[in-house]
């Protein structure tokens, strides 16, 4: 009886197994099909360029003739001989250490104030978010005009107040602070993220803290900040990455402020980094080598280094964040 049952059950089990197998394959195919746009996009726009960049970084490649293998020569020049790498790294570090914290602080401050507003909430949200919609080129041109040391309204007003205004974009000391002002003005996206996080904070925590006698600063310290700490981490990470890729505003400001925005086809004048190389950020240097000097092999070496540094910095920030980021419901 038992023997009969076993022999009768064997083909049935094998059939079920095959059916399960087929169903699993169907599911995998469906998943693959649904994911295929992303996979294709990832391979074409990220995977392939990444692999090619690494390969090209070991070649001499002028965009016009075939790449020629030169081993580590590009990296040797990058680390030991290129006189512009040091200043470009310092300029970019300035953005990370000064511009990014100011952006995050300003966005958080505005979001806190807007969250507390009793009246005109919609108006304030719109006003503070609106600059984020301005195209970066137009916004930069407007700032260069506003901060023109001779004719710009800001210095004219400062002059009426008896203050001798700075040279803003024309001065190596003030060019990066001027770009920081521009970035703070356009901080609407971060502000909206912070606002959503602040408004999402559990109200009962504030009520409990208040019952325990916590004042506004203590509530901020012990309730708001821990609650929104994942959002702070997110903001810091994306702002640091954006700072390492900072290009458009620096490119436009240098060209306009130098006063040599020349004829359409004229590339004889190199205004990148104006004034005195103070706006020559790492991505601007990369662009200069790749697209002005047609030295794409070396530009690829610069981009590989940028990728490694960006990845390392992001990992460090995330690892460090375990001490101060609190996830609701997380178990340690």
């Amino acid at each position: 009886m038992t023997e009969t049952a076993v022999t009768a059950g064997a083909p049935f089990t094998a059939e079920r197994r095959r059916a399960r197998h087929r169903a699993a394959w169907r599911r995998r195919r469906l998943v693959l099909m649904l994911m295929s746009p992303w996979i294709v996009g990832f391979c074409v726009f990220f995977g392939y360029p990444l692999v090619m960049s690494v390969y090209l970084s070991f070649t001499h490649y002028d965009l016009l003739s075939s790449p020629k293998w030169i081993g580590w020569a590009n990296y040797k020049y990058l680390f030991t001989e290129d006189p512009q790498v040091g200043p470009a790294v310092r300029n970019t570090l300035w953005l990370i250490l000064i511009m990014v914290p100011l952006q995050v602080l300003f966005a958080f401050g505005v979001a806190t104030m807007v969250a507390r507003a009793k009246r005109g909430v919609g108006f304030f949200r719109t006003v503070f978010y609106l600059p984020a919609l301005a195209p970066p080129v137009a916004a930069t041109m407007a700032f260069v005009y506003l901060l023109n040391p001779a004719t710009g309204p800001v210095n004219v007003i400062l002059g009426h107040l008896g203050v001798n205004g700075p040279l803003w974009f024309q001065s190596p000391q003030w060019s990066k602070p001027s770009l920081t002002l521009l970035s703070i003005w356009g901080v609407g996206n971060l502000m909206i993220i912070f606002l959503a996080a602040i408004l999402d904070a559990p109200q009962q925590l504030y009520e409990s803290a208040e019952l325990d006698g916590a004042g506004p600063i203590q509530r901020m310290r012990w309730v708001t900040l821990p609650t929104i700490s994942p959002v702070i981490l997110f903001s810091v990470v994306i702002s640091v990455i954006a700072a390492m890729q900072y290009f458009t505003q620096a490119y436009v400001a240098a060209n306009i402020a130098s006063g040599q925005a020349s004829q359409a086809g004229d590339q004889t004048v190199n205004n990148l980094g104006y004034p005195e190389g103070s706006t020559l950020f790492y991505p601007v240097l990369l662009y200069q080598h790749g697209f002005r000097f047609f030295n794409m092999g070396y530009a690829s070496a610069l981009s590989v280094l940028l990728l490694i540094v960006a990845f390392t910095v992001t990992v460090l920030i995330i690892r460090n964040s375990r001490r101060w980021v609190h996830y609701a419901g997380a178990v340690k």
Partner: protein
Amino acid sequence: MRRGVIAAIALAAILAAAAGATARSAAHAGTKADTITVWVGWSARELAGFKKVVAEYDSKHPDVNVKVVGGINDDKITAAIRSGNVPDVVSSFTSANVGSYCKSGAWVDLKPFLSKDHLDVNVFPKTSQYYTQYNGKRCALPFLADVYGFYYNKKMFQAAGIKSPPKTMSELTADAKKLTKRNQNGSLKVVGYNPFLGFYAGNAPDLSAYAPLFGAKYTDAGGHSALSKDPAWSRLLKWQKNLVDWYGYKNLQKFNAGAADEFSASHAFEIGKLAMMIDGEWRVAFIQAEHPGLAYATAPAPVDDAKKNLYGAGYVNGTIIGIPKGVKHKDQAWALLKYLTFNAHPLAQFSNLIRNVPTTKESLNSKEIKPDAHFKTFLTIFANPSSKTTPITAAGNAYGTLIQAFAVKWQAGHAGDLHAGLQKLDKQIDAQLKQAQAGGVP
């Protein structure tokens, strides 16, 4: 019978004529399908001038229809060559890139075409021959040149009691001081001569416009950077910094920030805020179009006091034109290229329209060139054997970026010891050229 014969002959003649006309128009219509495209950097008024020159060629050559695209820069040229979808003729304002184009073969070697048509490049002055080839490989031809000379405001000269334009840098400095006017708060109202690097084309921060005026040499006999070895560079930089300091670095910065873009009608010289300047010959056409009443004159730029014999020379640069690789209509492209660059008529015609300097020796003396005292100065400077352009290297004008980085720091007073700085700069330039040549000798 005779009438019948006459009628038959007349009918045959009419039919033949009609057939001929039809054939011509068919041929015209048929060959018009062979559209050749020309990419140029000019825009607006200058582009209209180029289209006019090409239209004449187009009307005389029924086998082609020439399409002109303006506002092209080297990024677009490179992208087109890489994609394989190229125009038939390309031109670039950045002659420094000729090294990349010739070396890579991105612009085709013109030697076979020149040999086939028995054309000799000695019809071009030496400087123009130089910036259209790389290491002996000719992949481009010159198509009008830019020549830098001296502009001065005659009314301001008269008011200041200055009789003639300065011929040396010390005379220029003295005149600049006489012509400068300051506001009560010390800011600059009118600048005599603005030496600030980066202010308009005459003060290109890579010092290219000043180098020929000091006879400054870029390289030594071994092809290595020689900025610290040739004392002319030190003299140039010291003269420039002294004059900047006389105005006040910050004062000039403010003046420059308030000055309009150099290609606008509010150019500081054109509106009387600048008494003297070094600029390209194109300014003559700009002034004619924007401020025809301006009382000004042109002359060769002043030179180093220690090298007075250089007076009459200047910086020369120019538009280069060639055929990209992968071109579809190579023969038609060459025919147009030959017409534009070797023929005195289109050169003179285009020169008259945009007031750039024509690039063959014949066209420099062409009777077609509209007489103009302002413009004539630049024809003379172009023909001067001491006039120079910048070196053509495998790295394009990348070395200029290093010179610029040092020079702007120097004028701001942030460069420290001049000689030590120039020595360091030489090393940087040599390393850069070595890198650009993939480890080869600079």
